[in-house]
């Protein structure tokens, strides 16, 4: 927490210094509208918090004079905010459905691109006390399972995976987001939960992730797009390009995402 705060402050200071430098020696940039400088606001799915914070810092370092501000929240909440006119430059969604909502409202500039995929794993308490190896082990009265609610992307993916495996299970709860599901495992309230592999890796000190074959049938795609009303389109495009670049992919795959 503290480290991130300091990093953020440092990034801000660097950005400020960079703005100062650019102002002094403004000779190598192109025409006004296409200049990669200034501030952008990126609305990104909560599951991207760690990776995008890192990628944002890298982007700022590579493009002096830029500053990336993030708004991390559930994809649907972000889509609603964009629909209500929030001043965002880039939207990175955890599900195509939310991106579609934004696109249908005509708020996407160009096409949304899938930049990464996330797949489900079974999160179990450290050491896997119930010896769970696959979805079929989740059925039964002595195994408490938490799932995401169907209305949120991780829940939709879980439903698809369970259908693909023809497993019918009654969870004890349908949580409102994947972090809540995960916390039920870390607190020991449930014996297993379906979460994204990235979440399981982020919580590796408390949980183990058990891969299962049927997860391939429920891969979640993450689309990203520049928004039509972006106040700083040039920098927004540069940021999207950066997210699609190899260094950013490395950051994302290290976090457990799969390349698109």
């Amino acid at each position: 927490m503290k480290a991130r705060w300091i990093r953020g402050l440092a990034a801000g200071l660097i950005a400020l210094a960079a703005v100062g430098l650019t102002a002094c020696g403004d000779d190598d940039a192109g025409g006004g509208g296409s200049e990669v400088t200034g501030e952008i606001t990126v609305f990104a799915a909560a599951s991207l918090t760690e990776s995008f914070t890192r990628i944002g810092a890298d982007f700022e370092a590579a493009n002096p004079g830029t500053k990336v501000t993030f708004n991390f929240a559930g994809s649907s909440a972000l889509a609603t905010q964009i629909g209500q006119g929030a001043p965002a430059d880039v939207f990175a969604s955890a599900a195509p459905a939310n991106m579609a909502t934004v696109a249908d409202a005509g708020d996407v500039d160009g096409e949304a691109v899938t930049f990464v995929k996330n797949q489900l794993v079974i999160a179990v308490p450290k050491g896997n006390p119930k010896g769970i190896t696959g979805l079929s082990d989740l059925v039964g009265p002595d195994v408490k399972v938490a799932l995401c609610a169907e209305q949120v992307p991780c829940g939709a993916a879980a439903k698809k995976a369970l259908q693909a495996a023809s497993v019918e299970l009654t969870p004890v709860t349908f949580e409102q987001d994947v972090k809540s599901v995960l916390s039920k495992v870390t607190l020991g309230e449930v014996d297993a939960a379906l979460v994204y592999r990235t979440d399981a890796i982020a919580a590796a000190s408390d949980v183990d992730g058990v891969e299962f074959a049927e997860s391939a049938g429920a891969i979640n795609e993450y689309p990203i797009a520049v928004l039509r009303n972006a106040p700083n389109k040039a920098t927004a495009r540069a940021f999207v390009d950066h997210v699609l670049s190899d260094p950013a992919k490395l950051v994302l795959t290290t976090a457990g995402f799969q390349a698109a």
Partner: protein
Amino acid sequence: MSADPSAAVSAPVRAPRRRRRAGRVPVALLVPAVLGLLLLVLPLAGLLVRAPWTTLPRRLAEPGVLTALGLSVQTATMATVVCLVLGVPLAWLLARVDFPGKRVVRALVTVPLVLPPVVGGVALLLVFGRKGILGAWLDSAFGITLPFTTAGVVLAEAFVAMPFLVIAVEGALRAADSRYEEAAATLGAGRWTTFTRVTLPLVAPGIAAGAVLCWARALGEFGATITFAGNFPGRTQTMPLAVYLALETDLEAAIVLSLVLLVVSVVILAGLRDRWISSP
């Protein structure tokens, strides 16, 4: 403005002056009062304006709506009962008994007011959860688990709503004349009899007001409930949870659910107010 109608009857001469005074509400009070009211009412108006009136009947008929509503009313009522049983004695203790650390206890009572409900839910898990301090013992000794059960919803709602009751009842007890309790004692009533026969009836309006606040707070409870009791239709999915999840996909459905919750609570509260809260 006149709280005592008999005063107006016995002093008819004063009535006209009073009416004139009512006409001269100071602007310095009126403006913020109206702004305050707007702040409270405008969001409600927003819901009404955006409500999908044409599809309303169909949406209301969906089975999940009634289930969630029933569960909400049921758990909020049970939570209020829990708060009354535990909170009224606690308020009495704070108002009538001097003990060391009373200030601290009073501050602790208000903790759920300042604590974000989600944090309250986590805190409840740490105590009553399967691995919790008490929860583990409840599970091993009695086979009782609270998370993900309706009882868990009641517990979470009682946790966040109790301060409203305790504060209201304590205030009523402090305002009540404790000499009535002395009078009861001189007539041979012990402390318990005095409490049930004299103190409780005296502060009944305060208890009713506290219970209503408590019930309303429990009815709207979201954070602690979803964190502690989870979200399972028919068992732990109350209206606010249903509203939140509906927001993920369908704004209109969320509005409809919110309106149902609002109407039910307003009807119940207004009904209760006429019957019990208005003092004689």
